């Protein structure tokens, strides 16, 4: 750590997970993720302490913090609030400067945005009030299939005959999945069917936005390789995925803390 280095933190306080990133000259120095667990305040403290510790600096070394996400209003630190879409856009842009379209499948909503060559928001759409287009849908199905979230992607890619869901409602899809299990459908086919249902919603949103390449998918759901592949097929374009897709909004927040004192 040099005396002239300035450090910045980004906090993404989402409905499911809270994430922190520490940057210096827009390079990621450290990151941490923790379940929000209904207590944004504690989760934010936890992830910020952990990432500061990883970076080997103290809170007093931070030159600025930007907070984003549903829980940003509960942040106990002196932090500027920026919309999560702006943070996602900047985070994805920092990782992929060629990015022009962003897809973020979060715990509650799916968001699609077009960004300019500086990583700024141009246009965006947010999914309607429906769980089928959100990451929650995957969590519901994983629970009834009794599999871990991280196993969904690899398992779904083995599917040969994806189940066709006849409903657009996550609650009814849950009972439909139970019926398919009872009928002997394979788990991978059920998961692939879920991906198709989600991809249909996501691609509709992205196409409405008049997408442009490159497309980057962020958010926890983009760790699911099966979902990424199905969405790519639905939109007809390759999709880039960050190495740590859960922390892109926090990274963008930290970058915005560096270069935008007053958004």
């Amino acid at each position, binding site marked *: 750590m040099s005396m002239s280095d300035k450090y910045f933190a980004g906090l993404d306080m989402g409905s499911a997970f809270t994430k922190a990133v520490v940057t210096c000259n827009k390079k990621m120095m450290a990151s941490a993720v923790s379940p929000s667990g209904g207590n944004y305040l504690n989760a934010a403290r936890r992830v910020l302490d952990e990432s500061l510790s990883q970076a080997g600096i103290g809170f007093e070394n931070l030159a600025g913090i930007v907070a984003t996400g549903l829980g940003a209003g509960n942040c106990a630190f002196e932090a500027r609030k920026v919309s999560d879409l*702006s943070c996602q856009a900047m985070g994805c842009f920092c990782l992929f400067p060629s990015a022009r379209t962003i897809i973020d499948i979060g715990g509650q909503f799916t968001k699609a945005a077009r960004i*300019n060559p500086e990583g*700024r928001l141009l*246009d965006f*759409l*947010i999914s309607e009030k429906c769980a089928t287009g959100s990451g929650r849908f995957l969590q519901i199905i994983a629970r009834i299939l009794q599999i871990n979230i991280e196993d969904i992607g690899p398992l779904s890619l083995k599917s040969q005959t994806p189940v066709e869901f006849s409903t657009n409602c996550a609650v009814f899809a849950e009972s439909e999945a139970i019926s398919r299990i009872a009928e002997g459908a394979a788990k991978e086919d059920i998961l692939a069917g879920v991906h198709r249902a989600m991809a249909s919603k996501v691609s509709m949103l992205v196409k409405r936005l008049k997408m442009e390449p490159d497309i980057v998918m962020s958010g926890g759901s983009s760790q699911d390789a099966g979902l990424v592949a199905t969405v790519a097929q639905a939109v007809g374009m390759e999709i880039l995925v960050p190495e740590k897709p859960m922390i892109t909004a926090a990274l963008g927040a930290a970058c915005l803390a560096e270069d935008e004192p007053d958004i």
Partner: protein
Amino acid sequence: MEEREPAKTTATKGTDAARKIRAMVKNIYKSCHEAQSQGKKVAYIMVSSQYDEILRAMDIVPLPTENYAGLCAAKRDMDRFLTKAEEDGYSQVLCSYARIGLGFDSLRKELGGMPENAPDGGMPLPDIILGSSGVCDPRFKWFQACGRFMTAPTYSIDVMHPPVHCDLNAVRDHYVQYQKVQFEGLIAFLEKQTGKPLNKDRLWETIRLGDEAWRLWYESDRLRTAKPCVMPSQDHFNVMVPAYYYSGTQEAVDYFQDLVDEVKYKVENKLAVVPDEKYRILYGGGLPPWHTMWFFNYFESFGAVFVIENQYRGFDPVEVPDHVKDPVEYLAWRAFLRYTARHEQAKANSGNPVVEKILDLIQDYDIDGVFFHACRSCRATTIGQIHTKNMLGRYSDLPMTQFVSDMVDLRDYSEAQWKAQIHAFLDAMASRKK
């Protein structure tokens, strides 16, 4: 800037004129009850049916059922009517104005009287029901369904909607004649119901008053091009009340004269809605969310003001030719000129009159972003929004956004989602300004 947490559903207004509207709304329903006690006919009506001046000339008191639905939503007293309609079998995807109206009528019939604490005293049973095809199909299907709950005679007229890519010179006479016949049928029906013939001198007078009120409304909107904004959109969504529900009366003319005077004064003295106006937003279309009108103030707390609308004041003043000497023919001509006002401009440019209008507004009002409201149960104002938005994108690089909820059904609204979207929209406007 600090976030201001609102505690009410309605919005804080910017003008004294808008603050007078609440009393005018109350008076709509009060005057209906009074009219019936005086032996006058009260009619369920639909706005934008082009027949307002005929009703006023025939002493028929208009009872706007759609407005009543909006009123129930603003008072957050809509659930009992919505659920009653849904209990009766009306689908949740049907127009929520219609569901509130039908639910209200159903409940009133079931109770044998006015539902307890009905907003503004409730709607009395109408003597006549007057639908139209103007704007959307619930305007006549809803009133057909009213037959389940009442026996009032019903009449619907067709309202023209000439296509854009037609030769106006070739179709004008047909449309004017067709509309005139529609009005004549209505007049014959009303004469039978009231037992009185239409006095055409009286109709000329109500037309003069109607045109003057709408001209003044237009004038007030042109004054709103001034910066900073002195009259925000939440005020507009109030001042539409005298334009639509008092059309053809001196009261409406006086109201809009006061509005023009007030807006002029505020412009001259730069009495801004927000002290530090950062972003000027165009309300690009869709019925407003009557259940959550405070969202306008939420935007304002970040220096963003809705300065003009592509909603409700659907027509600029038109010049009916001098050779038209019959008031019914005048109304037919006026309807034709109103509905084709931007056809030639559209044919020469984008091909879409709505896009043309919005592009004009963007330029005239120096707009920073365009907002659309998709109402899940209003097909008429929602279908085509994305198409319009995409077409606008060919001519403008402004940030545009579409929010989703409903005009009155709160179940289609998500506060967390709206707030997330509001902040993203503000960021998009900020990015463009950098």
